[in-house]
């Protein structure tokens, strides 16, 4: 079945020149981790080390690594608080290309949560080991170190009797407080728990803002729907996903090891889909009896019946709880064999089909599959839906709707409506689309597949396959509609660039001009452009598609008129649009004088100046601009260039001059064009004059003779 290329024109599918790609292997290693061992990788060193000052207070030593505080997506470094040397803090340097949880960072900095490691400060600073700027987050240093390290060294012991009070209670308090103010943590795992004090009394949740939700989590710690997604597409989720991770964390800490460490990831997913996460993740481990029901309730795959924080609190405080009963999911009596793997449930089949799409399309049309699914509980109805989808695909053989990828995406929704959105090699939750696109673009350098699924409305297929949509899903559906409409517009400030920044508030601008500056918030943009002005090719414009989209998504003012002008086909209008947008930014953000940027922009104003017809006005503007460039004021340059009164006078004057020129031209043409006629007329005039003179002479002679005769 035919595959169609994406209809939209996709600019910039590669990493920008200035961006240093993150260590993808290091990122991937997080997924392979058993959750017990933190990644101990040395930092990338493409530049020289040295101290970096953050907010003029925190001195981050790029040569002093603190691997015990590393996150899979961020390296930890020693920090000295220059105002309070007794203040123990450390820094996490985030990976460029991976979006951070910016909203959480901003909110977290102003709040204090019990049970959560405090975020003290953040800033984007030049980071010598990477040779570019990076997001650095300052955290309170947990003096007791990592919980899992202490457990390994047997400095502390947590028994099944300590689990509710010493482990679960502080964590669920932290999760609850965080959830009420900011959102779910989504980075709860054994190696991200710390003791705040040296006495190891106070356990806290570790950092969670350095990567998208669930990004740093091993798949075991994610509920099954999110575990089958790519880690960048796991989505924000809610506190029930944190409760799931808490359950897995309890198992690991109580048993002292990962019960499924030796199981291959794909086999574990298969087992979790087939037998449920609790059964699969516990394996043959003997869990303490009092923990079995709470853990089964926390690890329930159906989020609707999984314990929430209230139920966990009830359990911790010894109140009455409502444990989840062991429920058996529908399954076939005989397995269906697909690519050497036997399937008893539709869930595993949908997951496996998505990995082998061409084979899947053949398989669903085979007699074996038809016979198997007919015997599956309520399989006839499913079979009819599948047949309808296959027929529809055959009807659209010439379009993307007839492709195997599209059909298998549909089949996945039909077979397992609780599964994530699947398309080609992608699998993600609706609330994980933003990070999915950002990581595919920022890290892997190819956003095509993600853009294609949005253009082909694959999320729409997923939403339509669900029986009912709760509020978060309805919001996600609206968000997808908005993103799709943004994608469909190809002007600067829209398109895929706008989609990626709109869907990721913590994703740095990827424009090659400022990629090294790692611009995450709008206030950083003009200083970054000011810096870029010293090294960039000043014949190019300081606003490209990435920067326009970044401004459109991060600037809280209406800039549609500016974007419209920027997209104008006439160069002078486009230049004025660019100038007006930058001037508006400088004015609204109260940015200081921008000498280099103003000089850069001033050098590009030729077409805008030439938009004035009057040469004297042009000369006047050209003389005036250098003076304003020296002031570094874009608004003043804009006011000079786009003076409405001056422009109106110029336009009116030009029209009058055109009219005058035309009249002169017509008169010249009349004079020159009517040559023969004019000569004839002149000759006739001459003849008339001759006749008149002759008659006058005749009359004069007659009169004189008559008078003489009379006298």
């Amino acid at each position, binding site marked *: 079945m035919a595959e169609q290329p994406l209809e939209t024109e996709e600019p910039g599918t590669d990493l920008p020149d200035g961006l240093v790609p993150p260590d993808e292997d290091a990122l991937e290693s997080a997924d392979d981790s058993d959750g017990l061992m933190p990644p101990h990788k040395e930092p990338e060193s493409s530049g020289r080390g040295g101290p970096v000052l953050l907010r003029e207070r925190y001195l981050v030593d790029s040569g002093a690594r603190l691997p015990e505080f590393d996150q899979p997506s961020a390296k930890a470094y020693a920090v000295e608080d220059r105002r309070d040397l007794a203040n123990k803090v450390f820094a996490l340097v985030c990976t460029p290309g991976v979006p951070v949880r910016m909203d959480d960072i901003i909110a977290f900095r102003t709040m204090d949560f019990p049970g959560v490691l405090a975020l003290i400060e953040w800033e984007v600073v030049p980071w010598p080991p990477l040779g570019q700027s990076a997001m650095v987050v300052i955290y309170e240093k947990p003096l007791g170190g990592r919980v899992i390290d202490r457990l390994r060294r047997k400095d502390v012991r947590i028994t099944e009797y300590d689990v509710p009070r010493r482990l679960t209670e502080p964590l669920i308090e932290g999760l609850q407080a965080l959830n009420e103010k900011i959102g779910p943590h989504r980075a709860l795992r054994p190696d991200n728990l710390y003791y705040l004090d040296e006495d190891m009394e106070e356990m806290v949740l570790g950092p969670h803002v350095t990567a998208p939700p669930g990004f740093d989590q091993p798949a075991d710690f994610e509920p099954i729907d999110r575990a089958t997604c790519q880690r960048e597409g796991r989505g924000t989720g809610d506190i029930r996903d944190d409760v799931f991770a808490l359950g897995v964390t309890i198992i690991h800490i109580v048993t002292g090891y990962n019960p499924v460490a030796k199981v291959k990831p794909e086999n574990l997913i298969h087992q979790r889909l087939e037998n449920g996460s609790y059964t699969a993740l516990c394996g043959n481990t003997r869990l303490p009896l009092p923990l079995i029901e709470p853990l089964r309730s926390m690890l329930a795959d159906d989020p609707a019946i999984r314990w929430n924080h209230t139920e966990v609190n009830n359990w911790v405080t010894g109140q009455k709880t409502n444990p989840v009963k062991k429920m058996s999911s529908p399954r076939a009596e005989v397995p269906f064999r697909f690519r050497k793997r036997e399937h008893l449930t539709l869930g595993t089949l949908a997951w496996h089909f998505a990995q082998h799409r061409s084979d899947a399309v053949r398989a669903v049309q085979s007699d074996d599959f038809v016979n198997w699914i007919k015997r599956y509980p309520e399989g006839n109805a499913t079979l009819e839906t599948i047949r309808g989808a296959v027929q529809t695909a055959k009807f659209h053989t010439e379009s993307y709707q007839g492709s195997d990828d599209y059909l298998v995406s549909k089949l996945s929704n039909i077979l397992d409506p609780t599964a994530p959105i699947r398309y080609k090699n992608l699998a993600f939750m609706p609330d994980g689309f933003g990070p999915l696109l950002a990581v595919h673009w920022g890290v892997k350098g190819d956003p095509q597949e993600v853009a294609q699924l949005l253009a082909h409305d694959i999320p729409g297929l997923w939403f339509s396959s669900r029986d009912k949509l709760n509020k978060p899903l309805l919001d996600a559906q609206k968000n997808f509609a908005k993103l799709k409409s943004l994608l469909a517009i190809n002007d600067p400030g829209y398109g895929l660039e706008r989609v990626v920044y709109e869907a990721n508030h913590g994703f740095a601008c990827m424009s090659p001009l400022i990629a090294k500056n790692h611009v995450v918030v709008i206030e950083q943009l003009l200083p970054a452009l000011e810096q870029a002005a010293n090294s960039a090719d000043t014949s190019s414009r300081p606003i490209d598609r990435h920067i326009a989209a970044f401004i459109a998504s991060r600037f809280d003012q209406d800039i549609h008129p500016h974007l419209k002008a920027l997209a104008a086909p006439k160069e002078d209008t486009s230049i004025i649009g660019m100038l007006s947008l930058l001037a508006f930014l400088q004015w609204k953000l109260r940015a200081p004088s921008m000498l280099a940027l103003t000089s850069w922009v001033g050098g590009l104003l030729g077409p805008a100046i030439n938009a004035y017809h009057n040469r004297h006005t042009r000369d006047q503007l050209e003389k005036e601009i250098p003076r304003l460039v020296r002031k570094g004021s874009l608004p003043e340059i804009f006011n000079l260039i786009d003076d409405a009164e001056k422009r109106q006078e110029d336009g009116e004057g030009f029209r009058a001059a055109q009219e005058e020129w035309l009249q*002169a031209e017509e008169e010249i*043409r009349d004079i*020159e064009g009517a040559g023969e006629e004019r000569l004839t007329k002149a000759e006739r005039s*001459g*003849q008339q*004059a001759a006749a008149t*003179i002759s008659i006058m002479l*005749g009359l004069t*002679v007659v009169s004189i003779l008559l008078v003489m005769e009379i006298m």
Partner: protein
Amino acid sequence: MAVGNATQGGKDWSKVLGMGTVMVLLAIFSLPTLIVLLPGMLPTGVAKVCDRTEQGYATFCVGGLNLCGVFPYLMKLWTDDHSINAAANIISDIFSILVMYSAAGFGWMMFMAIPPVVSAFLTVLAQRRVTFLRTLQEDIVTEWGPEVSIIDNTDSAPPPAKKRG
């Protein structure tokens, strides 16, 4: 009616009739005058025949000065001896005929010489106007740029004619 006077062949029969009446009346009441006028104004008659202008400028030009040449002899005839004999003497006098015809010839010369002079004068005036307008256009282009001279293609004005050498 004026329209009715113009008849077949383009000839204005009313004028012919009028002229004929004048001639008959002159022949009846002033035959000597007619004897002098007929040969004396002969160049005017010839000019009338040759005149290709619609308004008869050649006839008027020749006729006006021809009359200057004839009128002194008519005055002499009218004041001295208004007889056929005196008229015949005037007509037969080669000097009087020379005066009459020279005056007519001078009229014809005027008709030949004055139109080119007038035409040349008007051409100079037109060229000066064109020069002035061109200078004005150049000033406009200097101030507003060449785009000011871009004329819409829908303009029906003919292209500029080449200047005459």
